[in-house]
């Protein structure tokens, strides 16, 4: 048996890693909805989910139960195959894109084979990520068409036209990064951002090299928000405008799949933004010399989070919360202590910084949703074609010129 495992270790280690990644991704998606509702609520001076479990932490579970047990009607006159295909396509593409992202530099041993942290690393990884994003347009367009109703059709057409238009500036805005790194592989791009310049600034693509990619980053992030149909570019699916856009006629689990696909795309885009512009898993502090104490930052962060959760839990209003929150706090302190120990410390550095940066980008996504007003559709398309496309082209030209001058 172990012989069979050892012979096919590539297959089994990939399957195990994919299973772990899907579990983590689905849980992260569920709690991302909780995070968004809490943050938008606090921006709007209210509390958000508060009753389902302490601090509303069981709200995603309640939503899941609701989605599973809700009635699932199929409207009259829909094209059944396409109606069922669209959410399946959207969610599977969103989850597949998460498999191309590297989470850390270390290699772990599974089934006797050293594998990197991350499902795979293609040497054209970035190009295939964009291929998956281009295919994601079909989920929206087919959903709108298959619903056999006016609002979904209009919303689907507008939404897919918007996604196709912003794909151009999305792919052009990262060409600067590609020129500076010289490779499409995501690991190579991160490894090209190692080191420090000016003694304190890390050589991430947004600060570094012949031309800091600030313009590229702003073009990328704006195009990404428009590509994932999020506010302020969500005219095609906003409740006040088009009743619900392309997912009006969907309910229960199929609607949940669209929802999860949208959040999955958000996570993929945030991961790409950290990898391409902010150094991926690289820590902003050098890990040696006078800065060796920065290796304990993950442990300290977990300890502080755990202690604050304990303090908050002891004074919570409900009895249930007074028991559960301190237990969660103790678990976090335990994780912090575990990460501080030498055998786990080196494994925890890379993924900790990566996930911290991804969380910051997700917070910016939700912050932008809660703060900015929505753009009208013609303003949206004008922004994409008349502003972002020329600006990203200019970024490509400027980066090439800077590289030519620097390598003279």
């Amino acid at each position, binding site marked *: 048996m172990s012989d069979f495992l050892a012979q096919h270790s590539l297959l089994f280690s990939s399957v195990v890693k994919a299973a772990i990644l899907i579990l983590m991704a689905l849980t992260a998606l569920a709690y991302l909805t909780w995070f968004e509702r809490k943050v938008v609520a606090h921006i709007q001076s209210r509390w958000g989910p508060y009753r389902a479990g302490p601090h509303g932490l069981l709200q995603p579970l309640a939503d899941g139960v609701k989605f599973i047990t809700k009635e699932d009607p199929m409207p009259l006159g829909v*094209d059944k*195959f*396409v109606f069922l*295909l669209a959410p399946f396509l959207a969610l599977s593409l969103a989850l597949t894109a998460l498999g191309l992202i590297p989470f850390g530099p270390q290699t772990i041993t599974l089934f006797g084979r050293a594998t990197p942290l991350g499902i795979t690393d*293609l*040497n*054209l990884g970035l*190009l*295939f990520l*964009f*291929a998956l*994003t*281009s*295919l994601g*347009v*079909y989920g929206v*367009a*087919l959903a*709108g*068409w298959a619903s056999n109703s006016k609002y979904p*059709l209009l919303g*689907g*057409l507008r939404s*897919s*036209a918007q996604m*196709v238009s912003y*794909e151009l500036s999305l792919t052009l805005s990262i060409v600067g990064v590609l020129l500076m790194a010289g*490779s*499409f592989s995501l690991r190579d791009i991160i490894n090209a951002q190692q080191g420090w310049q000016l003694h304190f600034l890390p050589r991430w693509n947004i600060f570094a090299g012949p031309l800091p990619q600030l313009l590229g980053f702003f073009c990328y992030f704006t195009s990404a928000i428009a590509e994932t149909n999020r506010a302020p570019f969500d005219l095609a699916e906003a409740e006040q405008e088009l009743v619900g856009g392309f997912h009006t006629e969907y309910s229960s689990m199929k609607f949940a799949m669209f929802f999860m696909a949208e959040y999955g795309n958000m996570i993929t885009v945030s991961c790409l933004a950290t990898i391409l512009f902010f150094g991926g898993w690289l820590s902003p502090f050098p890990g040696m010399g006078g800065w060796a104490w920065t290796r304990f930052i993950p442990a300290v962060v977990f300890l502080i989070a755990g202690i604050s959760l304990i303090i908050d839990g002891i004074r919570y209003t409900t009895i249930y919360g007074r028991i559960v929150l301190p237990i969660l706090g103790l678990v976090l302190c335990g994780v912090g202590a575990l990460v501080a120990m030498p055998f786990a410390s080196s494994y925890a550095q890379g993924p900790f910084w990566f996930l911290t940066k991804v969380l910051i980008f997700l917070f910016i996504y939700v912050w932008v949703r809660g703060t900015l007003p929505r753009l009208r559709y013609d303003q949206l398309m004008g922004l994409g074609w008349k502003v972002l496309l020329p600006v990203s082209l200019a970024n490509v030209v400027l980066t090439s010129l800077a590289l030519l001058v620097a390598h003279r």
Partner: protein
Amino acid sequence: MIVTILFFALALIAISGAVSLILQRHPIHSALSLIVVMVAIAGLYLLLGAQFIAAVQIIVYGGAIMVLFVFVIMLLNAGAEERTNFSRMAAYVGLPLAVVLAAGMAWWASTGSQSLPTLSGEVTQTHALAMMLFQEYAFPFELTSILVLIAILGALTLAKRESGQE
């Protein structure tokens, strides 16, 4: 061995997608079958070691051209095709001839001997393609950019409604 299994699986997917394309009644189902064929052909390109072309096929063909087809089908509200006079001669003579042709090709294929040469382990295929594209074939490359500009202008001019009409 894996390569053989993958080849036959992808070939089966491509052929069934093509047959579905010509047999489906509604254009949107034909469009979906064509997308399946294109993704299968991209997989075959990966088997042949052409990674960049596989990615470009999915991005350009599957993500842009077929989206254009799906848009036009949705905008024109193309319905299921109507039954027209179908030529009997084509069915009774053409199909057996096609089967004979396919059998001949299969016989020829079984006597073919050249197998796939192993990959030479070139450093980056993208790099080699780019060098060739921008040095030897730079003139056709610039011509295609003018071609795309002409196509954009042509499509805009043709599809624009005149200001007199509603």
